[in-house]
């Protein structure tokens, strides 16, 4: 932080200059007047928070900024300063413990950060200095250094590309770890720089570091000895960003312009905002209540004390005189210190140990997620990953699930399934070995003729091979003519995608080719063609090479590419074959192709296409057209003209495209499958069954996304779809805004107003035959809804939109930009009732929504690790979400909710007798319990059972939870931590506290409790109360425990035994360090009294009686209002339990 501040301070000087000037290779231009090289920060990345020296003060400061810690510190200080009833040790010791443990944990984490920093900072890089190549550590890079970076290396800082090993002065880069785009981007060297970097004498003037990744403005002055300095402008295409990786290029040289914390990557880094769970909010609310109780208790006692002391003879009887100092103290000061003393006496009601236990529970509990073998994916050989343990219980509270489609619901693994040529259906069967293995299935069409003509087949395959924008991944060994052995790094799979057969894992090397394309569909098509014998070999300066079935290499000159766009929904290429024919191949969605081909051809194929579409495949139709020289010349001219147009270029291009793509003849259709993730549909069904609403947020096209939704059973056959997309908006032919308004109101009427039954039963619709609504919106429309022109409309639309969405079972948002995804999440998150949201995704484009949602889940998918890194939890597959939420989340929530309630309860009934005792000891702040008991109660006697409970409890066993998704609804909306249960627990605590105190109080009506007539004193009184307390509180937990493992047994009975043992031990010795031997033999004497035994047993039983009664009474009536619905669940679960596990009662 200091560094940054320093930089900022230094930067002020720089800012005046408004830009930075860098000498390439530190060769200051000779003709420049005395040039002072400005100072820039070094290339060190500092993500650690502490150093060895500032760790202690800084960490302590950070820790005491937490309100709870600060509170305990204050209490401790009050104890030190003011004469208080309990020694500072009683609260100082736990506080010290907490602070130490936290400090150790944070220190360890920071050490890890230091290590990671070092790894980055010490990474060796090659610096060119005076013609020599010097290996340096990354952190030593200075602005102006000329670096050499090899293929697949990551750029150590922001560089201006000076030289590339490629002939065309370009290099390829992926920015997957920056923005998640995994495609290769081309960057260019600064034009006209000399090949000899040594003699390059240049300065770069560029703007100050700023975080926008796609913006860069700069100038390069090149000084040549005998010429005027040349000036070249620099843009983002010359800038290589730190964090991106060099691909397909052997080496590049570049000059460092931004380093260290000034790189765009570092500037883009935003600290993850701390996510707080709803449970924590509940804790804070409860804490407030208890704080009020505490203060009011102290106030009551202080007031009563002074009222009582006003009576003659009470304040200072002859037997109990005050010291001179006490007498001299100012009355108001005395009142104040009395108030503080009472606060200290009762401060145990807010237990410091609760924070520790909650933290421990979360930390340890999260291990169960990583340990779960069901989350282990044999493919990637990894299990689940927990990045934060703070949100475990939030997994049990999810109401909205936002899921990405590609890679999350689907495998992002496009696969060529079948094609249809001239009306004949071809299905690829197995890994067809012979090149002619073009199998024809017995489709209904092809009764007469089994195969389309070979000519047609080949035309179709050529079309597939040519009509695309795919690039072949070049291998470094290309020169040796080896084409195999490439790992396809873009889509990460071998060609043989039928991996399910097991064969796909080891594809034969011939078939391994890497293709790079913006859309995986194209790759799938090219690969599909390859499978049938037509291999696309790549470009050779505007020439496309394909290898035909007969192993001939055919060359086609690529004349024009008519790019794909979502409105036209097709793309075309115009090629010229060797024979001089000019051909146009076009592929696109059926709806956009059919009107442009001869109608008699359509019918034959339409059937196939429709069948494929209903099967959830992505279908494309392929058409072609012969262009005679005249036609081509016209098209060529039109295209060229349109491309050069300065105004309305888009429209003009479109017009030419439409003109060219007419009168084609349909060759066939393809079906490509984006496979669903394993058990995607089951998972979605379970989530919906659990009462969660699933929203699909995707950047994909609506049709594909819709078919995926159907395949995942998010939309069902009877779901009525409410579409709010660009298409529906344009249907009416009116202004978009008006139409939007109209549609919103109409849908709102449909989904919200006219369907009150649905509204009430949204949570039930999944099973019943209620009318379901599905809502579809696309990005453009969404931005209209959210950013409507007028302010008033905007909020109204937003409201309407939200209400519609909330009444739909599923919502599909397609064509979403990453930021829009986050916007949607944010909108739902902040809507009424602030529901808990969960985002799940695998790509970098999901990061924003993962960060925005309450719980972010990353899938360890193919699109890099960006999502995983930013997520709270990472799982290998979508199917694991079910167990994560339904089993783990549910259990964690129940555990922590019980933990919290129990903690408040046990401290209330701990402190209440002490409060009541004040009424009997002249409000003198006399503690009822010995200091040792006060300290140990929360640390030793009652902490372990609840910790074990909160780690091991399974009130319903996992199988049942997984089988009955509905159980998840029982704890929805923070069901166990709302005010109802809280008051129940508080009441229980009050009841127990009253019982303990007055039970013993009446026993002490005659303190002669031993059979030898001897009497008990105040410490015996406290010890009896405390014994009852410890036993009751522990047994209460035992009553709540539904899952008794040996650990529970050990801990529950162990801590009771420990209490007894400790009491004997503590009272058995004259402790030399104690000022007063208050408990000497008190416990042993207590146990020698039959009456004490009897009263302890009686009070324990009486305290637990209502609890037992409630269990019994509640049962026949089902879940009791206000009570935890847990019992109700149990009832449902019991039946299943008996099937799954033998109950040994």
């Amino acid at each position, binding site marked *: 932080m200091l560094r940054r501040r320093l930089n900022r301070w230094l930067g002020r000087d720089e800012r005046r200059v408004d830009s930075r000037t860098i000498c390439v290779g530190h060769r200051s231009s000779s003709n420049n007047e005395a040039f002072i090289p400005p100072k820039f920060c070094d290339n060190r990345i500092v993500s650690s928070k502490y150093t060895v020296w500032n760790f202690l003060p800084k960490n302590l400061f950070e820790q005491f900024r937490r309100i709870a810690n600060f509170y305990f510190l204050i209490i401790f200080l009050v104890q030190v300063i003011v004469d208080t009833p309990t020694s500072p040790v009683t609260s100082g010791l736990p506080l010290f413990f907490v602070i130490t443990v936290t400090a150790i944990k944070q220190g360890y984490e920071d050490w890890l950060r230091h*290590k990671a920093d070092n790894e980055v900072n010490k990474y060796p890089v090659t610096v060119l200095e005076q013609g020599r190549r010097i290996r340096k550590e990354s952190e030593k890079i200075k602005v102006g250094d000329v670096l050499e970076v090899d293929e697949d290396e990551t750029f150590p800082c922001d560089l201006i590309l000076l030289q590339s090993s490629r002939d065309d002065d370009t290099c390829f880069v992926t920015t997957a770890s920056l923005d998640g785009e995994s495609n290769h981007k081309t960057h260019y060297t600064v034009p006209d720089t000399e090949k000899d970097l040594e003699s390059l004498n240049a300065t770069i003037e560029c703007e100050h570091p700023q975080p926008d990744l796609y913006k860069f403005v700069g100038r390069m002055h090149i000084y040549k000895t005998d010429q005027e300095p040349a000036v070249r402008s620099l843009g983002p295409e010359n800038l290589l960003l730190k964090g991106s990786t060099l691909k397909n290029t052997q080496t590049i040289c570049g000059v460092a312009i931004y380093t260290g914390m000034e790189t765009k990557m570092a500037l883009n880094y935003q600290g993850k905002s701390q996510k707080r769970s709803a449970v924590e909010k509940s804790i804070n609310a409860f804490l407030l209540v208890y704080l009020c109780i505490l203060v009011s208790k102290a106030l009551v006692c202080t007031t009563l004390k002074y009222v009582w002391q006003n009576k003659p003879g009470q304040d200072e009887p002859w037997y109990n005189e005050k010291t001179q100092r006490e007498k001299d103290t100012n009355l108001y000061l005395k009142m104040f210190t009395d108030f503080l003393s009472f606060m200290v006496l009762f401060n145990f009601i807010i237990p410091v140990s609760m924070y520790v236990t909650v933290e421990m529970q979360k930390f340890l509990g999260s291990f169960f997620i990583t340990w779960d073998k069901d989350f282990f994916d044999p493919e990637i050989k990894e299990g689940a990953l927990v990045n934060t343990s703070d949100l475990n219980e939030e997994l049990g509270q999810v109401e909205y699930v936002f899921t990405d489609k590609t890679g999350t619901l689907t495998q992002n693994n496009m696969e060529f399934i079948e094609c249809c040529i001239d009306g004949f259906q071809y299905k690829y069967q197995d890994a067809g070995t012979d090149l002619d293995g073009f199998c024809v299935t017995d489709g209904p069409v092809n009764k007469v003729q089994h195969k389309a003509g070979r000519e047609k087949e080949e035309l179709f395959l050529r079309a597939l091979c040519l009509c695309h924008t795919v690039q072949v991944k070049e291998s470094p060994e290309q020169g040796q003519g080896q084409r195999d052995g490439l790992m396809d790094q873009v889509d990460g799979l071998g060609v043989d995608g039928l991996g399910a057969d097991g064969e796909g894992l080891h594809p034969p090397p011939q078939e391994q080719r890497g293709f790079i394309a913006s859309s995986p569909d194209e790759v799938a098509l090219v690969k599909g063609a390859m499978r049938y014998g037509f291999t696309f070999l790549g470009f050779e300066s505007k020439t496309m090479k394909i290898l035909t079935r007969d192993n001939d290499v055919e060359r086609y000159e690529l004349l024009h590419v008519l790019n794909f766009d979502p409105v036209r929904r097709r793309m075309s290429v115009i090629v010229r074959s060797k024979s001089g024919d000019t051909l146009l191949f076009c592929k696109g969605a059926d709806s956009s192709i059919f009107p442009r081909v001869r109608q008699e051809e359509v019918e034959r194929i339409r059937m196939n296409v429709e069948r494929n579409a209903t099967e959830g495949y992505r279908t494309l139709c392929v058409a072609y057209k012969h262009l005679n020289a005249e036609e081509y010349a016209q098209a060529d001219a039109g295209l060229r003209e349109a491309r050069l147009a300065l105004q309305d270029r888009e429209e003009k291009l479109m017009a030419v495209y439409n003109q060219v793509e007419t009168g084609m003849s349909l060759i066939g259709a393809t079906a490509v499958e984006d496979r669903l993730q394993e058990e995607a549909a089951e998972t979605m069904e379970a989530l919906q069954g659990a009462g969660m609403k699933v929203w699909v947020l995707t950047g994909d096209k609506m049709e594909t996304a819709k078919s995926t939704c159907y395949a995942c059973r998010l939309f069902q056959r009877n779901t009525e779809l409410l579409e709010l997309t660009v298409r529906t908006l344009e249907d009416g032919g009116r202004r978009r805004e008006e139409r939007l308004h109209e549609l919103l109101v109409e849908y709102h009427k449909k989904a919200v107003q006219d369907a009150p039954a649905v509204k009430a039963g949204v949570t039930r619709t999944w099973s019943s035959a209620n009318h379901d609504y599905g809502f579809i919106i696309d990005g453009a429309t969404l931005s209209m809804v959210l950013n409507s022109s007028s302010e008033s409309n905007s909020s109204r639309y937003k409201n309407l939109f939200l209400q519609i969405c909330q009444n739909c079972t599923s919502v599909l948002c397609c064509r979403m930009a990453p930021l829009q995804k986050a916007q949607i999440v944010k909108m739902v998150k902040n809507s009424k009732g602030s529901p808990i949201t969960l985002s799940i995704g695998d790509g970098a484009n999901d990061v924003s929504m993962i960060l925005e949602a309450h719980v972010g889940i990353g899938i360890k998918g193919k699109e890099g690790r960006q999502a995983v890194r930013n997520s709270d939890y990472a799982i290998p597959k979508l199917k694991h979400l079910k167990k994560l939420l339904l089993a783990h989340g549910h259990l964690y929530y129940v555990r922590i909710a019980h933990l919290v309630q129990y903690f408040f309860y046990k401290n209330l009934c701990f402190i209440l007798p002490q409060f009541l005792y004040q009424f009997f000891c002249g409000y003198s702040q006399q503690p009822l319990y010995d200091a040792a008991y006060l300290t140990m109660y929360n640390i030793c006697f009652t902490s372990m059972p609840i910790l074990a409970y909160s780690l091991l409890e399974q009130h319903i066993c996992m199988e049942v939870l997984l089988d009955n998704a509905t159980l998840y609804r029982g704890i929805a909306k923070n069901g166990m931590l709302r005010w109802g249960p809280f008051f129940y627990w508080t009441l229980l605590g009050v009841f127990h506290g009253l019982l303990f105190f007055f039970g013993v109080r009446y026993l002490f009506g005659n303190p002669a409790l031993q059979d030898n*007539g001897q009497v008990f004193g105040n410490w015996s009184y406290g010890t009896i109360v405390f014994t009852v307390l410890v036993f009751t509180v522990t047994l209460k937990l035992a009553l709540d425990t539904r899952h008794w493992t040996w650990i529970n047994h050990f801990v529950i009975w162990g801590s009771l035994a420990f209490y007894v043992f400790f009491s004997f031990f503590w009272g058995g010795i004259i402790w030399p360090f104690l000022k*007063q031997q208050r408990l000497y033999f008190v416990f042993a004497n207590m146990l020698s009294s039959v009456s004490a035994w009897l009263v302890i047993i009686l009070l324990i039983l009486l305290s637990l009686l209502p609890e037992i009664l409630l269990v019994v009474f509640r049962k026949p009536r089902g879940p009791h209002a206000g009570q935890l619905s847990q019992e109700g669940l149990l009832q449902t679960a019991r039946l299943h339990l008996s099937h799954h596990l033998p109950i040994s009662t």
Partner: protein
Amino acid sequence: MMASSYTAKEEDGHITVSGPGALRSRKPENTAFKQQRLPAWQPILTAGTVLPAFFIIGLLFIPIGIGLFVTSNNIKEFEIDYTGVDASSPCFNCSQSFSWNSSRPCTCSIPFYLEQPYESNVYVYYGLSNFYQNHRRYVKSRDDSQLNGDPKSLMEPSKECEPYAFHENKPIAPCGAIANSMFNDTLELFYNDPNGTKVQILLNTTGIAWWTDKHVKFGNPGGNSPNLTAAFQGTTKPINWRRPVFDLDADEGNNGFINEDFIVWMRTAALPTFRKLYRIINKKSGMVPTLPRGNYSLEVVYNYPVRSFEGRKRMILSTISWMGGKNPFLGIAYITVGSVCFFLGIVLLLIHHKCGNRNNNADISN
């Protein structure tokens, strides 16, 4: 966080370079604990399991309660308030004319009549009311190491003893408010024989304090040296005491800090109304009751002022049972809880019987 992104980058690199085979397996161990499948006992409280418990509790508690109640009722207790608030009270004069400095002790005699003979050992208690022995300032005003016989603490009493730590620059032994306010009325019992003679009843001064207190917690300075006067040399008596600590009892084993009256007093009472064991009247051998029916008189040497804080002083004669002194609370509580349990058991049984059938039907229909 930022650093973690770099490490993750490293991982990415590994995946592309080495392929899946080279990754070390991180398969979670399949142990019962890690998979949360530890064998567990899963008790479910049902009416079926709870009902018998209720009956058992009922059946156990009611007899215990009755036993306790009967025992408590059989304990004979006699209480006499000798504060002397009423003008008619024999101790009225003493209570009125009390002054700390009076050299001549005021005595008064209160006659009373025991309607029942006390057969077993009789325990004599003194009771004080509205006396806050549990006041914080009071409770902490002691020095346990001084009382344990530590010579250092004897001469330098703890600060907690203030303002009863030093008197005229001499350390007070025993120091503190508790010791200073030790109960110092002398109670003597006389049996008025029907034949007119007044027989003093022998009151046993030992066995009234906890054994561990007397033998471990409390100890005279100088160990077992017979000369207590020398041991307490240099200290002064508590301000309100009439005699120094080494002069509490003639008996060597009951003098100084290990005087049992003192030890009993030092065990601070839990509530402002309390009783403390004063003397024990041991049962004589044979069939003679310890205290036969008849007229008695309580002779009080009235030293202890309680009127200033509206306190009361009582003398209690009580026999003792296995459960201690007379206290009907436990018996009543046990009987009540037992009957409630039993009653609840019956109610639950009825409810369970009715609803159980209904539930079963519901289950089937589901």
